[in-house]
């Protein structure tokens, strides 16, 4: 059965039948794992500094490159949000912020945060670093393409940032870029700004496609022996499903940016209706603005889950490890991720209830939107049931996870409000929507990112981040973020519209004045509080204590590399063999409170482990 791999100098000793400890030769070997299907991956080792750190083909380095570039864009987005809050909380205090600037800040902030920060960070950063490690591969399947993917992203970011410096400045059309105003005079950045934005988005899509193919094929075709799909950590499931969504949703974005570029440059009228401007008919005519909205949200809603699903996956793993308990309902969690992913292609027009689309669509999209809340709620129950009677360690990582659950539930509930047409109509385009999506796709995933940084920093850098500083970081961020977004629900109820530069003497302003000052102050504090993390990292790199192998006593493969931090090729000269899911914590009868995925059944025969 297994002659071909069996006696190769001790390779795969666990998997041959002859090892079986049973007295008669008849019982099948309980540790048997099928022989390898894939040839050993042929890795190209770097020969120079440039090949090692710049045009590097190692997914881990690429992951860090993605991470740092995304964080850079995130900082730009954060600064823009400060400027906006400065204007909203204390109008006129910073005289240089004109209404045009304000629109540009809103637009760039939104686009950067959603696409260039969160998407790139989760898929490019965590995806690259963790996928090969967690599924037991030596690297991504196409390392060269992976390298190109990062550099394409880098160019996309450069083009985006360049738009700050062109005549007219960046586009101020809102991150949804709705035509016709996007490319018409009167909108800031309707010349070069919007062009650079569209080019940058197209480059991002191309670059992401290269990366996404890698993530998908690595997960589908390059898992190690014994790693079935249903033994993968939920992190991998989340990133995988998000990648699938991205591969199918980004085309709509690409197409709409191409069409809008043509409208802008060649004067086609894909999205441009007949327009009367100051009594004069423009050259455009006959196009359909609502078509753009459909294309945009056919991308846009899945994009929301591209950000959310990796966060779901990662937080599940973090909760399980730090509550020392198996994840409750693993299969349900997987199916919920997949189900949410599939459904997310059928809900897009819930962003368009007030757009003037076919009024019958409201029925369809309200129903699908509410249906998608079911698997989402199941996930929340499962996180809570995982915590239930767990051996919870209230460390920094766990705090971030709890923070995630709270903010996500909060944002999810307001999502149900907005999913119903009749409730959405008065609320849409108010601060209630702003509060909703910041809770659910801003703060909640950010909490997970922070938790993930504290969790995996010991793996990437080999040192433990300081816990005290971590707790300070958490509490200021969490309480601060809540102070920012919770009052916004109220502002929405009293009717304050979003994307407004100033309220002047409107009734909104008078009743919201104190609140706006409060929100802005909280925003400055939260932003500044992130410096605690920077300080923590610097301090840890200098004086932090060594992490050693597997400091959290986790089960998944990334902690079982030959060295910490892992080197090129990840696992030394033999790949690990997987015998179980990654959630065997506190198994009765086991010496330790965890069983690594690599522990063979014969090693744990004396325990009461149920799943292998």
């Amino acid at each position, binding site marked *: 059965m297994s002659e*071909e*791999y069996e006696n*190769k100098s001790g*390779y*795969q000793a666990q998997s041959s039948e002859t090892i079986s400890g049973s007295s008669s030769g008849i019982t099948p070997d309980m540790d048997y794992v099928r*022989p*390898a*299907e*894939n*040839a*050993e991956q042929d890795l190209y080792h770097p020969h120079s500094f440039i090949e090692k750190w710049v045009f590097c083909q190692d997914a881990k380095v690429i992951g860090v490159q993605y991470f740092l570039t995304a964080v850079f864009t995130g900082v730009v987005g954060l600064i823009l949000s400060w400027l906006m809050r400065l204007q909203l909380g204390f109008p006129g205090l910073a005289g240089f912020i004109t209404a045009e600037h304000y629109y540009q800040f809103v637009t760039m902030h939104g686009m950067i945060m959603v696409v260039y920060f969160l998407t790139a960070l989760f898929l490019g950063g965590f995806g690259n670093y963790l996928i090969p490690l967690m599924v037991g591969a030596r690297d991504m399947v196409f390392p060269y393409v992976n390298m190109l993917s990062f550099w394409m992203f880098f160019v996309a970011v450069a083009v985006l940032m360049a738009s700050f410096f062109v005549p007219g400045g960046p586009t101020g059309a809102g991150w949804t870029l709705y035509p016709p105003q996007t490319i018409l005079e009167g909108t800031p950045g309707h010349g070069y700004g919007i062009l650079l934005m569209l080019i940058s988005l197209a480059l991002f899509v191309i670059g992401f496609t290269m990366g996404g193919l890698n993530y998908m094929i690595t997960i589908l075709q390059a898992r190690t022996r014994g790693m079935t799909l249903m033994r993968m950590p939920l992190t991998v499931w989340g990133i995988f499903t998000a990648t699938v969504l991205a591969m*199918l949703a980004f085309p709509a974005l690409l197409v709409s940016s191409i069409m809008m570029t043509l409208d802008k440059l060649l004067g086609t009228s894909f999205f441009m209706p007949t327009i009367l401007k100051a009594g004069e008919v423009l050259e455009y005519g006959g196009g*359909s603005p*609502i*078509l753009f909205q*459909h294309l945009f949200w*056919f991308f846009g809603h899945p994009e929301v889950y591209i950000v959310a699903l990796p966060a779901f996956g990662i937080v599940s793993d973090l909760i399980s490890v730090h509550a020392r308990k198996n994840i409750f309902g693993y299969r349900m969690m997987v199916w919920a991720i997949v189900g949410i992913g599939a459904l997310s*292609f*059928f809900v897009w*027009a819930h962003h368009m209830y007030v757009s*003037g*689309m*076919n009024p*019958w*669509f409201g029925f*369809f999209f309200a129903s699908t939107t509410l249906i998608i809340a079911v698997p989402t709620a199941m996930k929340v129950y499962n996180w809570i049931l995982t915590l239930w009677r767990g051996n919870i360690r209230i460390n920094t990582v766990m705090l971030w996870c709890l923070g995630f659950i709270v903010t996500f539930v909060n944002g999810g509930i307001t999502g149900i409000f907005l999913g119903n047409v009749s409730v959405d109509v008065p609320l849409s385009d108010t601060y209630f929507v702003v509060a909703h999506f910041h809770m659910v796709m801003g703060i909640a995933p950010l909490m997970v990112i922070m938790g993930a940084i504290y969790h995996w920093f010991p793996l990437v850098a080999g040192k433990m981040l300081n816990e005290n500083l971590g707790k300070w970081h958490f509490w200021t961020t969490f309480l601060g973020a809540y102070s920012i977004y919770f009052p916004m629900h109220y502002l929405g109820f009293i009717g304050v519209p979003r994307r407004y530069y100033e309220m002047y003497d409107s009734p909104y302003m008078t009743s919201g004045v104190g609140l706006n000052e409060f929100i802005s102050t909280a925003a400055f504090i939260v932003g500044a509080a992130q410096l605690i993390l920077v300080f923590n990292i610097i301090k840890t790199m200098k004086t932090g204590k060594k992490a050693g192998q597997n400091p959290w006593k986790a089960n998944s493969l990334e902690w079982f590399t030959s060295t910490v931090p892992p080197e090129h090729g990840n696992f030394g000269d033999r790949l690990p063999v997987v015998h179980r899911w990654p959630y065997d914590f506190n198994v009765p009868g086991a010496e330790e409170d965890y069983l690594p995925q690599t522990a063979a059944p014969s090693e744990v025969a004396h325990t009461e482990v149920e799943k292998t």
Partner: protein
Amino acid sequence: MEETKKKEQSGSTHKIGIYLWIWGLLFVLSFFSYLVDWYQFQGMLRWSLILFFMFLKAGLIMAFFMHLYWERYALVNVLLWPMTAIVCFVALMIAEGKYTLFSRLFYFFVGG
């Protein structure tokens, strides 16, 4: 390395006849769809014939030239299920297109 079962050198290849058959069929079907225009069929008949020949041709290319017929079901399903999203998109955009035209004409003639 050695631990691998030696990778299949190649998939089993198929008889040349099958490719020639499909090739021929594609020409014939293209010719038929051309005839739809030649005889100027109109209305439902035209549209259903166009779609019929189109899907047949597409199916033949995918199934035989792209070997999907011989691939395992897992791959086939992964490739075909996402098309439901496209089908839904198409269906809704048909409704939306009609509605946009309706509202344009309505507000043009009746007034806002």
